[in-house]
Structure formats: C-alpha cells, structure tokens
C-alpha cells in the first residue's frame, strides 16, 4: 500500500501545516511516512509544493511524476502547474479562489478559473470549491487548508480514519482548535 499526496499553493497559505496534519494522522495509524517541504526563499509568496507519502514500503521523500494519488491545490493555477505529477485516476481537491502572481497583474494574463478547472477535469477527477470563501464565512480564510483536509478525509477509499484526523488536528494546530475542527467538518460535506 502506498498513498502519494501533493499539496500545492502559494507561500504563506498554511501548506506545511496541512501536510503535518495528514502526515501525523498517518503516523497515528502506524504507517511509515515520508515527505518533502519547501522553506526559506521559496516561501516569499512563491509557488510552493509539499510532497507527502505514506504506506508500508516507501523510501523517497519525493513523489515520482505520474504517481500522485491526491492533489490538494490551495490555488487554481498551482493545481495546473503540477499536473505532470498526476495520472488519470488522480483526485484533485482545488480551492478556486485565485491569487494572481505579481507577474500576471495585467488584464488577461491570469487564465480564467473556469478554463483552469476545465483543463483539470479533462485529465483528472476534480472537486472544485471556493474554500477561502467558505472559510471566511466561518470567520477566517486561514482555516481553508483544514477544510480541504476535511474533503480529502471523506473521500471513498481514503485509508485514514476520521478519528485519526481529529486527533492530528488537535496535536498539530497551534491555535483555535475548535474553529479548525469545525472547518474540518464543513470540508467533509463538500464533494
């Protein structure tokens, strides 16, 4: 058994925290866990991707291209950027709230979100939702990451129990645990 998860987004969106929650939930279930993070210069609003893997016989911290099972994209463009890690069975959970990079400030230089989702849907299975907006409705955009984990946890055949996620959120998230648990529940009902 081997599960490969790619989490992509923009530096500062809580990507490492999300990776820690899923990773620790996998540790709680006795899996071997590996992964790779980006720190330093690349975090300054740049494109950030974290690899997370768990299973019985895994070694590499990085996912082989084409072997990503689940893509969690915190920003639509950052889903498209890592499509080469996916195969036709990959399930992507995509936050549709765009963050235009400073290189794409001019009209039309950021592709339309509809177009991005369309390309993704042509190639892989997609769950698209404006998680940022849904998180704002709970009080802060910051819990969009945990909400997306909620959606992931509720997927059919995803091999980690809900209880392990809840315990992981309690041990990993530094503040506002109740709000994060609420966001997790909201996420579980998005499909």
């Amino acid at each position, binding site marked *: 058994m081997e599960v490969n998860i790619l989490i992509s987004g923009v530096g500062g969106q809580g990507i490492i925290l999300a990776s820690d929650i899923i990773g620790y939930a996998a540790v709680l279930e006795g899996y071997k866990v590996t992964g790779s993070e980006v720190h330093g210069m690349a975090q300054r609003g740049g494109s950030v991707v974290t690899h997370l893997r768990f299973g019985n016989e895994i070694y590499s911290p990085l996912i082989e291209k084409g072997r990503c099972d689940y893509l969690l994209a915190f920003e639509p463009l950052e889903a498209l950027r890592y499509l080469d890690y996916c195969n036709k069975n990959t399930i992507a959970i995509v936050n549709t709230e765009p963050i235009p990079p400073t290189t794409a400030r001019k009209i039309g230089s950021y592709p339309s979100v509809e177009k991005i989702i369309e390309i993704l849907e042509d190639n892989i299975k997609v769950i698209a939702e404006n998680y940022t907006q849904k998180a704002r409705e709970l009080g802060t955009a910051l819990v969009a990451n945990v909400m997306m984990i909620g959606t992931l946890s509720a997927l059919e055949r995803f091999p980690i129990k809900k209880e392990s996620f809840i315990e992981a959120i309690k*041990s990993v998230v530094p503040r506002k645990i109740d709000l994060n648990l609420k966001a997790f529940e909201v996420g579980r009902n998005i499909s």
Partner: protein
Amino acid sequence: MKIDLASEEKTRALLLGNEAIARGAMEAGIKLASAYPGTPSTEIIESIIPYAKRLNIHVEWSINEKVALEVAIGASYAGARAIVAMKHVGLNVASDALMTLTYTGVEGGIVIVSADDPNAHSSQNEQDNRILARFAKAVCIEPYDVQSCKDFTKKAFEVSEKFKIPVVLRTTTRVSHAKGSVEFGSFEKVGREYKFIKDAKRYVVVPKHTRVLHKKLNEKLKKIEEYANRSEFNEMIINGRLGIITSGVSRTYVREAIKELDNVSILEIGFTNPLPRKLIEEFITQVDKVLVVEELEPYLEEGVKKIAHESGVWLEIHGKDILPRELEFTPDIVKKAVYKFVNKEYNNIGLKFEVDISIPERPPVLCAGCPHRALFYALKKITKKKIYTGDIGCYTLGLAYKTIDTCLCMGASVTIAQGFYHAGVKEKPVAIIGDSTFIHAGITGLINASYNKANIVVIILDNRTVAMTGLQPTPASGVNALGEKTKELSIEELAKVCGATFVKTVSPYNLEETIEALRKAFEHDGLAVVISKEPCALLARKMKLTKPAPKVHRERCRGYLCQACSACVNLFNCPAIVLEKGKVRIIEELCTGCGVCAQVCPNDVFEVVD
C-alpha cells in the same frame, strides 16, 4: 508540530530531517550548539533552543560560521560535545578553522552539519561538501532519510570521540527538509567534568608541531578507513551481477527504482570519508558492472574507479555518463537511469497532456510592507546611473527593481563596490547589504573601504532580524537565541568607528527623508553609509506593529487608465495592491499599513488611516 523533542519517552513522531538531527544531538548529550542561520540548515539550532535550559545546553546564533565552529572547538577542547550547523557555503567561511582542526583533533565530539543545496533552492551555488570534508581530512557521514538523520547524528559523536576527529554530517535540502516518522532513542549520560588538559604539541600548531600532527592525522585516517568498512551507516545487498552504488537521498530513490526489478545488487554508503575501501572491493568483485547514483560531483564514482584500479578489478563503472552532474535528482531521473542500466524500458504512468494556456510563473517576491521595497523605490527615484552591488538576503529580490547588479557571497557587496571604484568606473558604486550580513562579513570590508580610500556608498538594510531564514535575532536586535536581553550593537556607531565620514539613519517608510539622505550620501566625497532602519514586515506582524490598510479613494483611482505611471502596481509592485475591475484594491490580509503607497501615488488614491 507541538511535540516534546527532548522527551525521555520512546515515542514515534513526525519530524523534519533537521529536527531529527537536533534530537540525535540531544540524545548524544551535547553541551553546546552553535550556528549561523542558513537554508536548509536553520531548523537544527532552532529545534534545540526550546530545550536548552532543561538540558543545560549552551545554544547560540553566532555571528558567522567560522565563529560558530571556533566556539564549538573551545568547548570540545574542554571535553564537551558540540554540534555546529551551517549551509554548505557556510562551511567555506568556517573552513579556515576546519582545515587545521583535523590536525589538533577534538576531545569532546564535534559534529559539523553541512546542509548542501543541490538545485540551489535557496543558495548561490551547488558545491558538494563531501569534497570539502575530504580536503580537510575530516570524517564525512551522509544520512539519507529522517530516521537516519537522528541515528547517524547520535552515532557521529561516538565516531568523533573514538578517533578524536571532527565529523562533517553532510545533508542536502531533500534530507534536511524531508518529513518522516522517527523512533526516538534514549539519552546518553555523558557525565564528565569539562576541563582543559594542556598539551602544546597538540593544541599549538607551530610548524614544528604541525609536521608531526599531519603525519599522525594521515595514520588516523587509515584506521578510520578500517572502521568505515564495518560501519552501520553502510548497507550492502548482493542480489545479482548488476550493481548500484549510492549515498545520501539517492539511496531512497534507488530503493524505489528497484522495487519492481530483480537481480540488482546495491551498496549504500553512509560513511563517505574515508571511503570504506574493503567494502567497495568486496562489492565490485561480486558484480559485472556498476552504476554510481549520486547528486552533484562524481565523488563516489571517482573513489570507486580508483579502488577498482588499485585492487586490479576490471568492471564497467557508470555514473556521470548517464546521470547529471548539476541540479538535484528526482525519483524519475534515477528510475530512468537505473532502468537504462539494467536494459529495461521505463514507462511513466503520468498524464500525457497539452495545456493551451500559458501558466504564469510565480517567483518569490518581497512581502507586502517590506521595508526593502520602499528603499529600492527611493533609489530608483533618484537616479539610474549607479552600480548596485548586492549581497545575500531577501533584498536579492531587488533584482526585480533593477537595484541589484551583483550578488556573490556574504559581505561581497561592500568589497566588490570598492573594486569598481578603484577600477575607475564612471558610475558611483552603491553597496546594498542587510544588517545581519553586514555583521557576518561586511564590517571588515567597510574598514577596508575607509583605509584604502574607496569613495563608495554603503546602504545597510537594517530590518532588525535575519529575515530570509525565519526571523532569527542579530547582535543589533539586542536579544540572543534564547530571547534574553544582550547589549545591543549600534550599527550607526560601528559604521562611524569603521571610518565612514557620512552616516545617516532613515526610515524607508518616509520616502522624502530617505531620498534626501541618499542624495547627500551620493554627493558626499568619501565613505558614506545610509542605514535604512525599519523592522521586517513579517517581524512587524509578529510583534503586532502593523497598522490598518489605507483606504482607496475610488474616484481618484484611474486604474487601467492611469496615465501617470501606474506607480503603485508597476513600479512599487506591492503584492497587497491588485488591479480589479479597473480599479485598485488593497488585500487587507496582506497589507501591513506601511503607508508607502500613499507617498508613491501622484493622484492621492491611498488615504492613510490613523
């Protein structure tokens, strides 16, 4: 993660490679930990800081890597175990000490972590410090995953003390920043009295002593080579006549690559200097051909070729003829090479797709509210006819503002500018250097400028912290690694003492004042220093020093029609300002309320809120 890294309990935790190194060092009973922050090494010392008091460890952010190592050497001479952490280029700075430390040897174990950065994720080069370790005649050990980070670090102290030699624990970004599950081990009770036993023949390297010490060192290395053959850091699996030799993170890629192959023998080397000669001999006599899988330099490959030649074994040895010598490996690169080596077809199951839109790049940028941006804007307002020598820090991103023309190594901004001046270039050289980089390696350069009459301008970007590596304090912030108050270093006084005849401190958030000071500095005949002082935007956020975002006056904003200059979006280029539906909008979550945009816009669109 909320985890007790110094727990006596033998739990299983999810750790970063660097956290595992910290845990390994604490299990080994270190008395001292020192470092200068640098990606990808920073988290090692950061992970020891919270436990320093509890475990009675002295932890410090040293002002540079040479200082960090020398402080550790003193502790070691007194019998204490010490860990020193740095990024690969940091070892260049510390190499002066390391090159001779191997001669005197150590008393308490010293482990020097060199976190290399293949792919230059956050570095100026891709040097392979296995070569530097061999050059210095130090032991080199390479962990390959998070568990081995902990285990190898702990064991490295034992090796260091057994042979009284410093150990270079060489990681790479994909090892230091790997995440993985780790089993905790038990704490060693070092329990010794720390005292210095004088021995001039060993500790005073005058020529007479050095000649003897060098011979002893070479003899010592032969003994270590014997030990390396039996080291648990290595692993050999004989399974057929095709062999792969590998080290570091490549070990994990090779393990993945051979999952669906049978008949591949592997030799994984964790003890990379001195190389385990007998073990390699044993391996190459049992296979017909070998592929060496290692990132960057053909370090193992050359070693294996030499050993094969000297032991009279003939076999095909591949390596850099198949695999790249630059950038980092990925599982795909290694799998492709391994399949080629065993004559099997590699089919990637990945999507074959075409995207008919272009995906805009998303490079790292200066944060919203970054004081550097304001300074760069001020510089651009004055003149374009300058040469800007840059340095190492977030401000290298000034590249986007065309206010960074060179960037080489720590402190080189101040000195390269002097070379431009003495060469007689027409434009006035302007050096741009951060507060921490200035303290690390810029002070001597500044004294040199004064002493040798270089008429340059030095701008010190004093953002009160080491920003790029995650907000570590500096001597100028007046607190140490543990957060205790220390004597605050005055950069202004220091600049004066070094010989600057014009010194002015400004807030870059006040554009008018900043432009005025820069003008005066440019006109000054002699060494001029301008200190641009304002806390890093991330630090300001952490210290709750931010202000509300300005209000946007929608009638005054002409958005896309703005013929004036689109100064806010195009020139100032703050990520908190976006053009939306023809007008400017401020993303309030990003804005720190620095108020510089209000000074930038000629149409008074931004109204500062008090």
